[in-house]
């Protein structure tokens, strides 16, 4: 047995120091094989889908009125199903002209009626992501008037004049996906507008259609030969669920897959020396943060809030276990978002934290930090626990599955929450509207969707400023407003934003033009070649 052990150990060391070239068991030239975690997909219906992996599928299957070009993400949204649009003088009505000659996978033409149906459907189904649309005042009662098709145009009418870019950015989210009305209604059961059927099937007009989705196993997509930008070079895309980073890495090294999307920093470091593999970094929108419950008598003291901002080892973490995958960022708007601030004034400073705590008269504080069972979060939590202990605060970690901890967080039961937040649509309001917006802080309001409410924070006036920023149509002025909100937020809020995610996609070096969607959208595959 011991012989076997030492053999193993020896072999492992051998692997660690060797920089062997990739095995040549390559995947077919016209098939893209991606390994990632897809166990969060619970539905493929664009009106319902709201998770990362589901967003990837949806982006490749459904076209939208306006959309991002993966080869030029910096340009912002561009026309897709909508050829052009006009905004009424009062700023509440946008009229889209629908492009001619587009067709769904079924062969049905894409018409204004389909657009009207898809957007109305998203509002009527009232699933979780529906708030992205209903925040403009659409409701089941008025949707027949507010979203309307007429000939080859679709008109949407909002309850007040919002920044046009805000409205259009929201339409690039997954929920803006346009479905094939005829096909969907053919599968309607008990007036569900095809929801049950669309959960596991697709009826879009995008570059790919879903051939099969096996939950927690794989998604297979087939190219749409009639795609308006031309037939995608990858005729099949296979997304394979592989839980472990090490497994993804081994499979990439052996040439069994083309792209590995969930490698941890150590495996990225390990694989970058392997011949034939490249690692492509993309800044994502996800933020890691700590938040202090303002219902807590001690945590609600301003000095204490400030002290905590000096108890996080921002540099140490992003240089060690988060290395390459997170960058220090202390503002609620992720970098690359309109108005995002890049000021990061805080650093680990135990002396200062201790002094602040002393000024606030804190002694023998004991806190419960809720954190979900994910390795990087556990490490952040333990690092924080360590620093807090040095400042005389005893931190107990409550670890649970996402849903478990989330339930407590939403019920305002945790002292401190360690979590991540990803934007829902590529507009600054997506984060401002939850971090710095809380019109009614009372328990009865039960605004569980707002982060500020969950932490019992009344935002000290930022709510009004956020509301003002979202209707401001001048881009430069809007950016400046957000900058001000962030500056105040940094100092006064009970949120300690720590870092912004960098996605490190490792891939076979033959794979070109792969796009994970950066901070604003999801992955797309039609432009990939190899």
């Amino acid at each position: 047995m011991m012989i076997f052990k030492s053999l193993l150990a020896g072999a492992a060391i051998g692997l660690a120091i060797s920089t062997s070239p990739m095995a040549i068991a390559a995947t077919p030239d016209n098939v893209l094989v991606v390994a990632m975690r897809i166990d969060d997909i619970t539905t493929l219906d664009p009106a319902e889908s709201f998770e990362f992996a589901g967003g990837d599928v949806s982006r490749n299957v459904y076209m939208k009125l306006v959309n991002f070009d993966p080869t030029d993400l910096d340009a912002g949204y561009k026309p897709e199903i909508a050829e052009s649009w006009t905004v009424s003088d009062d700023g509440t009505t946008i009229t889209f002209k629908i492009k001619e000659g587009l067709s769904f996978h079924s062969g049905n033409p894409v018409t204004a009626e389909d657009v009207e149906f898809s957007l109305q459907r998203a509002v009527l189904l009232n699933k979780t992501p529906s708030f992205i649309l209903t925040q403009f005042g659409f409701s089941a009662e008025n949707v027949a008037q507010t979203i309307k098709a007429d000939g080859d145009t679709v008109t949407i009418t909002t309850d007040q004049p919002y920044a046009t870019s805000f409205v259009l950015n929201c339409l690039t989210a997954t929920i803006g996906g346009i479905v094939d009305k005829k096909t969907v209604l053919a599968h309607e059961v008990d007036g569900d507008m095809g929801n049950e059927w669309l959960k596991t099937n697709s009826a879009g007009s995008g570059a790919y259609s879903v051939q099969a989705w096996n939950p927690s196993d794989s998604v297979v997509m087939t190219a749409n030969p009639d795609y308006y930008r031309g037939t995608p070079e990858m005729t099949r895309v296979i997304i394979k669920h592989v839980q472990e980073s090490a497994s993804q890495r081994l499979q990439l090294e052996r040439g069994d897959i083309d792209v590995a999307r969930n490698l941890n920093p150590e495996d990225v470091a390990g694989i970058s020396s392997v011949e034939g593999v490249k690692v492509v970094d993309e800044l994502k929108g996800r933020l890691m943060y700590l938040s202090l419950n303002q219902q807590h008598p001690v945590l609600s003291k301003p000095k204490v809030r400030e002290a905590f901002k000096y108890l996080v080892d921002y540099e140490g973490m992003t240089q060690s276990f988060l290395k390459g995958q997170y960058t220090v960022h202390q503002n609620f708007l992720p970098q690359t978002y309109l108005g995002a601030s890049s000021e990061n004034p805080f650093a680990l400073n135990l002396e200062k934290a201790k002094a602040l705590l002393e000024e606030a008269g804190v002694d023998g504080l004991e806190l419960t930090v809720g954190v979900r069972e994910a390795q990087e979060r556990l490490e952040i939590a333990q690092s924080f626990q360590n620093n807090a202990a040095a400042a005389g605060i005893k931190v107990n970690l409550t670890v649970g599955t996402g849903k478990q901890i989330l339930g407590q967080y939403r019920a305002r039961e945790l002292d401190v929450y360690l979590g991540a937040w990803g934007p829902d649509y590529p507009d600054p309001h997506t984060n401002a509207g939850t971090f710095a917006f809380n019109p009614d802080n009372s328990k009865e309001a039960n605004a569980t969707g707002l982060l500020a409410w969950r932490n019992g924070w009344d935002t000290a006036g930022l709510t009004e400023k956020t509301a003002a920023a979202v209707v401001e149509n001048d881009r430069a002025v809007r950016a400046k407003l957000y900058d001000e909100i962030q500056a105040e937020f940094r100092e006064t809020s009970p949120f300690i934003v720590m870092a912004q995610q960098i996605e490190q996609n490792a891939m076979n070096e033959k794979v070109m033009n792969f796009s994970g969607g950066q901070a604003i959208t999801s992955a797309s595959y039609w432009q990939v070649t190899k």
Partner: protein
Amino acid sequence: MSEQTLKQWLLSDAPTSRMQARVAGLYQGWLRLTSNWMTLTGLIILTALVLVAVCAPLLAPHDPFEQDLLNRLKPIGYDDHYLGTDSLGRDILSRLIYGSRITLYIVALVTLIAPVVGLLVGTVAGYLGGWTDQILMRTTDVFLAFPRLVLALAFVAALGPGIENAVLAISLTAWPPYARMARAETLTIRSSDFIAAIRLQGAGPLRIITRHIWPLCISSLIVRVTLDMAGIILAAAGLGFLGLGAQPPSPEWGAMISEGRRFILDHWWVATIPGLAIFTVSLAFNLLGDGLRDVLDPKDGGHG
């Protein structure tokens, strides 16, 4: 007696007192137990484990919770980190040493719960028979038919993760076999003459069960517990591996493997060392259990 050495006294074929007979029986059992090198190995390892756990603060070269982000994932033999450091730069050897306490804690708690519950249910069911037996045994069947790890997982999920809850959950899955065993033994003992005699003397069921049936079930129970211990340690490690056992920063071995598995390709020792520790201890329990069975369980054909 003064002429005899202690050894002769213990090995005497004709014990002169009850005490001598009993002590001699134990001694001979001990001799048989230790005459087998496998059993002896198991015993030595477990003794060492207890010693390590007791003397943890003396043995550990570092504070098991002390982090050092600059010196993370260092290899075996780096500086004074004899077994390297983990992802947060903590000394693996020290964590291993302190982790032995958790392992012993799990072992002790489960031993206190599962066999006792099983014994209680099994003997009561077996002795009273009838409806009590039916209900108790059907309940046992329900728990037996449950997928073991799923039941444990469900319980931990229900109670919240943590080492005590993990122990409870494991005990919950571990008691049914004991109950079945105790019931089977009770059925044979119940109809024996000496129980009938005691009953005639007017002893109640409670007294008969606790005073006369329990002692007779104990030896096979001990064997079974020792053999099961490895399974229990592995189950606890499995829960730790799934993140439902001991909570960070606790140095529970299963959780250490779970933390280290991310680095398995480049920093293999982080997961391997606690894996070896779990393996060694459960092997020791198995070796000991095997030996104990040979000594205590006559059905299995005597000494080995």
